[in-house]
């Protein structure tokens, strides 16, 4: 049985349905990422789990205890769920130490606990007496995490905590947060709209769309086998082509390529990830070669973009390559495919 269960949860604000018939299972000790475009209900879902909102229908259960359903509602302060908000939500009137110790009872070892927590999230002890506005964005997030960890929560909710940080800092903070939470063995739910963050942070990714979970699974599975075009392109660049399926292959603009057809035949839509495609300069006559030609090259330093048009396909292919592999405009190219194409059901 999973650690946290949401069953047919619905929440509406006036006539706007924010979350609709949502089901989600979070295994104990896992890191689950909830990802989706803005307006998909991510924040509402998080607030329902935290206990800031009560669901209109459905139930939220944690470790077999009902947190909320039609009859019961356990308010946030009695759930022992940790929360790190988008901008940290530190108490501006308290020092770093008092922020971290806010949820701790006044006891002899309070100061030691605070220092231990600071070490745990790699905060310099010099910052102990500082006020939140004297900290950098990354430091604020670490304080917020330490503050939430102090209560040894059963579940930790992270509400886009890295989105306010600059790119370099974001990745480093994300890694250290993941490590801290794993070491503490706390089940974690991260909400984000950043696909790279979603794929790298979680054991499980749930894609939210229009208030319900459209697909959930491991990052690798979602990336390789998205159930539709939207999820495919949300999680990364995708080449989507119409094709005719045969047993284990597909005929498309790229020629005959192997496909994950699962016994399906006839007209279908297939998807390839750009890293499955390989370009080489066409060498004379080759039956299996698709007629492709480089039509534009955009120089961008380490990452260059080549546009390739396929004969028989109006949609040009975009290749991200390094500058050394860039081909001249007008070059006829050969496209080979590694692995199998994914077929949308």
């Amino acid at each position, binding site marked *: 049985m999973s650690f946290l269960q949401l069953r047919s949860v619905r929440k509406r604000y006036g006539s706007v349905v924010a979350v609709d018939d949502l089901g989600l299972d979070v295994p104990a000790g896992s890191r689950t990422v909830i990802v989706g475009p803005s307006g998909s209900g991510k924040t509402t879902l998080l607030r329902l789990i935290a206990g800031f909102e009560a669901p209109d229908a459905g139930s939220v259960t944690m470790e077999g205890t009902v947190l909320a359903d039609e009859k019961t509602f356990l308010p*946030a*302060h009695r759930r022992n769920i940790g*929360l790190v*908000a988008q901008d940290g939500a530190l108490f*501006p009137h308290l020092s770093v130490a008092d922020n971290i110790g*806010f*949820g701790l009872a006044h006891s002899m070892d309070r100061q030691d606990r605070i220092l231990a927590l600071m070490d745990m999230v790699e905060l310099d002890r010099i910052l102990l007496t500082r006020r939140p506005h004297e900290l950098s*964005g990354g430091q604020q997030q670490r304080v917020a995490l330490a503050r*939430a960890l102090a209560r040894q929560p059963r579940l930790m909710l992270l509400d886009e905590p890295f989105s306010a940080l600059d790119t370099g800092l974001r990745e480093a903070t994300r890694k250290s947060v993941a490590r801290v939470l794993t070491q503490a063995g706390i089940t974690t739910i991260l909400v984000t709209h950043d696909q790279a963050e979603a794929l790298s942070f979680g054991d499980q990714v749930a894609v939210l769309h229009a208030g319900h979970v459209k697909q959930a699974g491991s990052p690798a599975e979602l990336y390789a086998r998205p159930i539709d075009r939207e999820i495919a392109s949300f999680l990364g660049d995708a080449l989507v082509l119409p094709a005719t399926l045969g047993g284990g292959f597909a005929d498309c603009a790229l020629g005959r390529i192997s496909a994950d057809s699962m016994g399906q035949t006839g007209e279908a839509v297939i998807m390839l990830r750009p890293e499955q495609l390989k370009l080489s300069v066409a060498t004379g006559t080759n039956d299996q070669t698709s007629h492709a030609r480089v039509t534009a090259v955009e120089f961008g330093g380490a990452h260059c973009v080549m546009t390739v048009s396929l004969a028989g396909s109006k949609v040009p292919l975009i290749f991200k390559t390094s500058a050394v592999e860039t081909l001249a405009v007008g070059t006829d190219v050969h496209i080979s495919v590694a692995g199998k194409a994914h077929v949308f059901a």
Partner: protein
Amino acid sequence: MNVFHSRSSSIAAPATGAAMFVSAAALAPLCFILWITFQTGWATATALLFRPRVGELLVNTTLLEVLAVPLSILLGVALAWLTERTDLPGARVWSWLAVTPLAVPAFVHSYAWSSVAPSWHGLPAAVAISVLAYFPFLYLPVATQLRRLDPAIEEAAAALGLAPFQVFFRVVLPQLRFAICGGALLIGVHLLAEYGLYVTVRYDTFTTAIMDQFQSAFNGPAANMIAVVLALYCIFLLALEKIMRGAERYARVGSGSPRMPAPHQLGHAVWLCLLLPAATAALSLGIPLITLARWLAFGGTAIWHAAVGAAFLQTLMLAICGGLLATLAAMPMAWLSVRAPGRLAHILESCHYYVGSLPGVVVALALVTVAVHAFLPLYQTMATLLMAYFLLFLPRALVGLRSSVAQTPVELEQAAMMLGRSPFRAVLATTVRLAAPGAAAAMALVGLGIATELTATLMLAPSGVETLATGFWSYTSELDYPRAAPYAVLMILLSLPLIVLLQAQSKRMAGR
């Protein structure tokens, strides 16, 4: 430091000069206090000060402060929380009703209560009516601050295991500290300065004692010495507020979420909670308005004699002239403090601000002394009266002007200069032009303050000049309550725009 701006604008020097001139005028009451202390001499001063009478006044005034200010804080915070953070039915209406008592001058509040309960007097009446008349000064900043608080911070506290009432005391209340300190100071200073209210309920404070002395013995050393004590008391309150507030500021961390805080559900307590704003509105608005209506009905048309109209025009004229004077005088300082801040600008700005906290009676005594000893022809002229208004309401003008100048980008001034305007003309064409709505609001605030000013007007107005406040006061003193009623009604009507201005200002500060 903004070295670049002060160097690039050659207008900084003349502006500094003008601001220094205004500051010098603002320092006149302080010089008066020092001069009086010096001139009276130690022996006479101790003889005048260490009397049982002065001790009694000190106790009376202090009792009033320590009772009325905390009660106002309780009432103001409770009402602000109910109207801003709960699902109280009709919260917007209650919010307006909590500010509107400011439109009723304190001495009209006491007039109403003495009509309803003539035998109610002394400390209880003084405290209760002071709270009813002045609590909006606390309600307004607290409500504004409550609207600005980031709800994510309260949610963080709840996620850390705090029950709602603990969240209020450990997270919300500490963040209201500045608003409470500021509001409490404003109320404390008003209590020191108030005259009419305490005369009506027969409660002696420093201000009423000085007025008694002044009216019987004119510019005697006794009145002057008590004025020195009163001024010191006021400075003590200013210092106390500075200590309570602390040096630190509570910056809002991060960008904050644009989400509106979810209102607290009152549930079954809603009826009990409705009782507070309803009772407050009934006592602070219902009593004065019903009393006035009764006296108006009782007096009929006879009480609307020509003198009322004359007083109205006189008041309007003084309000416009005083508003214009204070706003013009505050302009150099407003520009300096935004465009060329620095140590000198900061000192000059403090000079502008402190004078507004002084009780009207102290400022008026200072002007009387200056006029009698230096420029006798000025004594009992319009000029002296306008000077008093200008000093008393200078901070009001500066606050409004400063924020509108701050909203005007300096690049516009620079662009105008690049297009060939002289620095002065450039400022005139851009910043002054764009700050005009703010200046108009500042003028209105000053004018509305003048319209209900009683103490300084009683002391300084040339004979024959009667404002709405002094007209009202002379009839009230003769216990001719019906004849006083029309003056009160006109003062309230004149003050209503003030309420709208204050509400708009508070909404703007909360970013809505």
